[in-house]
Structure formats: C-alpha cells, structure tokens
C-alpha cells in the first residue's frame, strides 16, 4: 500500500469503518510510515475539535408543551381547517374582543388576529413567530396570556387551543432567548 492510498482511507480508518483486511493493511503501513501516522494524528486532532452540540436541559413544561403541540398537529391533520374558515374564525374573534372589551391593547389584538389567522390556515410556527417581532414581544405576552385565560374560561373551543399554541410559541422564544443570552437574563426571566 502506498501513502496516497492510505491517506485516502484515513477518515474511514479513524471511524473504524474499514473491512478488517483493509484496516490491517493500513495499520501495517502506519507502523512503518511516520508521515502517514502524522496525517492520522492530524485528522484525529481536527475531528476531536468538531464536537456535536449537546442539547441543553429543558424544563418539564417544555416537554409537555411540545407533546401537546405535536398531538394538536396530529389531530389537526385529521380535521384540517380550510383557510376561509380560519379567516372567518379570526374575524369572529376580533368582533368578540371588540364588543365585550376584554382588555388587550389594540396592537396586541391586531397581532393576535394575525397569528390566529396564520394558525387556523395551517401556516407553520415560524411564520407565527415572525409575526411576533422580537422588539415588542415582551410587552405583548401579558396581554396575550391574560387574553387567553379570559377566552379559555368562556370558550372550550379551537380558539383556546390555538391561543395555547401561541403561548407555547412565546415560551419557546423565551427558552431560546435565555439559552442564547445566559448572562442577560435573570432567574426571574428579567433581562
């Protein structure tokens, strides 16, 4: 075996992915070739530096929310809501808010309508998150959560479920934000 062939095979040799006979040939060559041993050492050094991201510890609430979101999507697939129904639901929701004056600020309501429509029309979470711009999200959260609880009390319906999804989405943004800015976020979540 010549050096060129051995160097080609070093990655597979490193991972133990060579057939035993070929691996033996490489091993024999390495025993007698300092340059190829250096090459193997260099590959090993580089690959040791390329470490897999390790998932952070996440709270139990994250997992229960995640499972709930998955099951909601699974159930939604079985009973998909057409776009027109989503828009109609959003309009009805808007009228309901306006008439009974449950409290959220107009801006929050507008955003609420936007994300509600997105959700009901089966647009993915990303788009909902894009709708909630990071600049104003914190001020909207209380309104959204309070609003959710008010609506949840009155309606055991798809509305409440979709608001729950929004809450989960906001919560995820918090988790991400805290993970990305560990030094900027206090234990009580304050920035």
């Amino acid at each position, binding site marked *: 075996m010549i050096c060129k062939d051995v160097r080609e095979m070093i990655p597979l040799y490193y991972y133990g992915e060579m057939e035993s006979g070929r691996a033996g040939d490489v091993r024999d060559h390495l025993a007698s070739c300092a340059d190829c041993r250096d090459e193997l050492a260099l590959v090993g050094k580089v690959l040791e530096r*390329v*470490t897999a*991201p390790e998932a952070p510890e996440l709270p139990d609430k994250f997992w229960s929310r995640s499972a709930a979101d998955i099951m909601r999507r*699974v159930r939604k697939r079985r009973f998909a809501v057409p776009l027109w129904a989503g828009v109609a639901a959003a309009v009805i929701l808007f009228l309901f808010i306006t008439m009974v004056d449950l409290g959220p600020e107009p801006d929050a309501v507008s955003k609420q309508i936007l994300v509600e429509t997105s959700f009901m029309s089966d647009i993915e*979470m990303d788009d909902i998150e894009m709708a909630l711009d990071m600049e104003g999200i914190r001020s909207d959260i209380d309104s959204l959560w309070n609003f959710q609880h008010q609506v949840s009390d009155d309606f055991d319906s798809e509305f409440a479920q979709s608001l729950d999804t929004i809450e989960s989405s906001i919560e995820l943004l918090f988790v991400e934000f805290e993970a990305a800015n560990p030094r900027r976020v206090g234990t009580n979540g304050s920035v």
Partner: protein
Amino acid sequence: MKRGDIGEFEAFVLDYQRKAFSTAYRTLGNVHDARDAVQEAFVKAFKARRDFRGESSVTTWFHRIVVNAALDILRKRPRMHVVDEMPEGADPSAPRPEDGVRWREMKEIVMSAVNNLPERQKDIFVLKHFNGLSISEISGTLGLADGTVKVHLSRAVHRLKEELSGYDL
C-alpha cells in the same frame, strides 16, 4: 403502536420525544430547529404509520424519520447556530490556556467549516460524526450505497482537515 390509535400514538410521543430531540439537536445545534424537526418527524410518523412493516424496530424506523426531518431543516437553514453548548461557568471571551484562540471563536470557525461542506458531504458527516450512525445506517437512512457514503465521508473529513488544520487546534 396500533394503527390509527391516537392514544397509543400520544404515548409514543411521550416516550420518544426527548431522544428524538437529542438527535435533532446534535444535527441542528439549536432548540428552535430541533423542536421543529421533532414535531415534523412525529407528524410524518403518524401519517406514515400504516406503511410501517415491522422490518425494523419502531425505534429504528422513527430514528430515521427524525434524522431526515432534521436534515431537511439543516438544508433549508444552512447556518448551524451554536449558542448554548459552552461549558457551564466558562467565560466566552476568555481564552483557555490549552487553546490558541478563544473558545467561541474556534467554535464558530469549526461550525462554519462544517456548514461550508457540500450538502451531501455535510449530511453524511453530521450523521456520522455528530449522531454516531454507522456507514450502513447512513446509507439506509439516505438511500445511498455504502461505497458512496464512504467516499463522501472521506471527502468531508479531508476538506475539514484542509480548512481547520491551519488553526492552532
């Protein structure tokens, strides 16, 4: 998992979501994308449950779905964000004695090199190096011949070596 039984599927979600998340996170490097991949994988698994023939274990079958869901996201969002894997208590701006460069800077350089691999090489390298799949598992997951996987893996490693060996590792 019985076909069509949503209750059993929910139990399956509760049993497997953490493992699936861990797999997706190793591929994608951030909570948001990993969560998306896991959700997508479960929805796909639910849709495909009738196609499951029992030729492999449910775990193996589902793992493959998770890996593919993660790779789909990796291809759409090529930047791998590494924001939360710094050792606890480490100062991101402080050079470690054993490093020639700052920890985070080096991390960025390494991840950038992985991101810059051609798509097929990156998929295979991530599955091998980050997820610990064997060549045969990778070829099964991606529908490629073993030889093809080996060639791409070798090229990926050589390319990373070329790109990173100039740094003070």
